[in-house]
């Protein structure tokens, strides 16, 4: 796993995102993703993760959001003012929550949409072979409408679409949402293989912290619109707060409901 110590692939600096001029969703976030890394961003519902991702991929306008401050630089180019299709063509490909399958198009047609990032359909067959190898379901369902696929299959299709576009950075927004644990584990394993084959950098937004920390090398924890902790995934796994609040390990001592102080306990991120 070669990590370039030079310029990061994606650099977000002091980003602020506001919806409808009133809702402050992202309150000054900085993060960076180096080429070749798998970086994860996790946190509870409403932390602002999806808002951050939308800001990165240019989709804020369609949900009435705005970048109020800060900057996003991708591969040396500022992208905070660009349209989503431009950002995709630059090599930053996002798979939104729920997948990127267009339901009314067939599986095959969905895959062909990657031509808009590739420039043409040339060479797509070889890349496709690589993916279909790992996910044979794509070949069997090639001519079915995307909407008829199950949730897990749609995630697979979204992944295939994304990789066929040969992005430099793949941004995944909660890919495990709604999937059975077994399927999640399986998909993530294949994701790691495909990452190698296609040489992509991955920014993974997840609620399932355990799976996320398994495949990522670096992680950010987001709460209430801010990054509250970050570090290498090993360090994160050892951290007591993270263990308790995100990994479900409460250290063995039995807690009783009468011990009110426990529930009033604030997360002491800096200690």
């Amino acid at each position: 796993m070669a990590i370039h110590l030079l310029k990061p692939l994606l650099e977000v600096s002091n980003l602020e995102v506001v919806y409808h001029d009133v809702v402050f969703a992202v309150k000054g976030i900085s993060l960076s993703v180096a080429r070749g890394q798998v970086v994860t961003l996790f946190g509870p519902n409403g932390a602002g993760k999806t808002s951050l991702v939308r800001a990165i991929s240019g989709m804020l306008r369609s949900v009435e959001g705005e970048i109020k401050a800060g900057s996003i630089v991708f591969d040396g180019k500022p992208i905070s003012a660009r349209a989503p299709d431009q950002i995709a063509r630059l090599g930053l490909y996002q798979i939104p929550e729920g997948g990127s399958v267009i339901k009314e198009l067939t599986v095959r047609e969905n895959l062909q949409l990657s031509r808009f990032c590739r420039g043409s359909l040339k060479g797509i067959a070889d890349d496709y072979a690589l993916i279909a190898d790992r996910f044979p379901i794509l070949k069997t369902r090639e001519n079915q409408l995307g909407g008829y696929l199950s949730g897990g299959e749609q995630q697979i299709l979204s992944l295939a679409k994304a990789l066929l576009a040969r992005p430099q950075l793949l941004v995944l927004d909660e890919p495990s949402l709604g999937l059975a644990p077994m399927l999640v584990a399986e998909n993530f394993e294949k994701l790691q293989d495909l990452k190698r084959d296609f040489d992509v950098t991955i920014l993974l937004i997840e609620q399932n912290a355990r799976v996320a920390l398994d495949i990522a090398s670096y992680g950010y924890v987001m709460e209430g619109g801010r990054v509250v902790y970050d570090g290498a995934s090993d360090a994160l796994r050892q951290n007591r707060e993270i263990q308790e609040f995100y990994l479900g390990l409460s250290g063995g001592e039995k807690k009783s409901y009468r011990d009110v102080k426990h529930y009033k306990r604030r997360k002491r991120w800096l200690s």
Partner: protein
Amino acid sequence: MEILVQLLLSGVSQGMGYALGGLGFVLIYKSTGVFNFSHGQLIMVGGYFFYLFQVQLGLPPWWALPVALASMFALGMAIERLCLRPMVGEPTIAIIMLTIGLGGLLRNLVGLIWGTQPQAPVPLFEPGFFSFAGAQLPRVYAWTLAAATLAILAFILFFQKSAQGMAMRAVAFDQDKASLSGISVPRVFALSWAAASVMAGVSGILMMQLMGLDLSMDSRGLSAFPAAILGGIDSIGGVILGGLIIGIVEAFTGGYLDPYIGGGAKEVVGFVVLLLILMVRPYGLFGTPEIRKV
């Protein structure tokens, strides 16, 4: 028998004209979700543009045609950019009203510039008759039929096979996801309107050959609505079939029913068919039903 064949031919060629017009609606609807109530007026403007270049400016028809169509292309893009893009996200009725207002504006501008007198265009196709199945049929019907069919085939090829066509369909189904796939949604909108205007132009030019050029052309274009709905507004094959059915039904009504009741049925029968289809199968013969969630 002769009457039957004559009616059939006129119905089919008229129907293909409707199909061509209907396909323009369908293109705009499929790509942008807007139902363009001003399409009848666009068809009329196409005819008048051609007249402008062919007769008033005296260009030879093989020059006048591309110039007229290029003007339609530009008009379509202008309409999209100036009137429709600012309306993204507004409720359906506002957009429908906007297109109706646009239609009124176009119609009045045409009247302002060219006046109410019917114009005398130079026919594109040689006049005269030919014999078929024992009947004497006007040549112009056959030529328009051929031209319309060609135009439709070209359009289908474009929409199904080309990258732009796929982009239009993706945008029609899910704008956000299409955008994330690297498709420029504003560009697709602009292109859709431009292409639809070109098709309207062709339709207008052909209709001009069949029935002359005057201000009533836009209400005849109204008959393309039932054609599009009958077939299913997001099915190309459906629109063509719908156009043919409406054209033939209108022709037969005009030929057989109107003489008994003193006229008028021909214009209204298209709407009767429309109503029946809406009651029985609102999404048309081949359309895909809308999936709604609460």
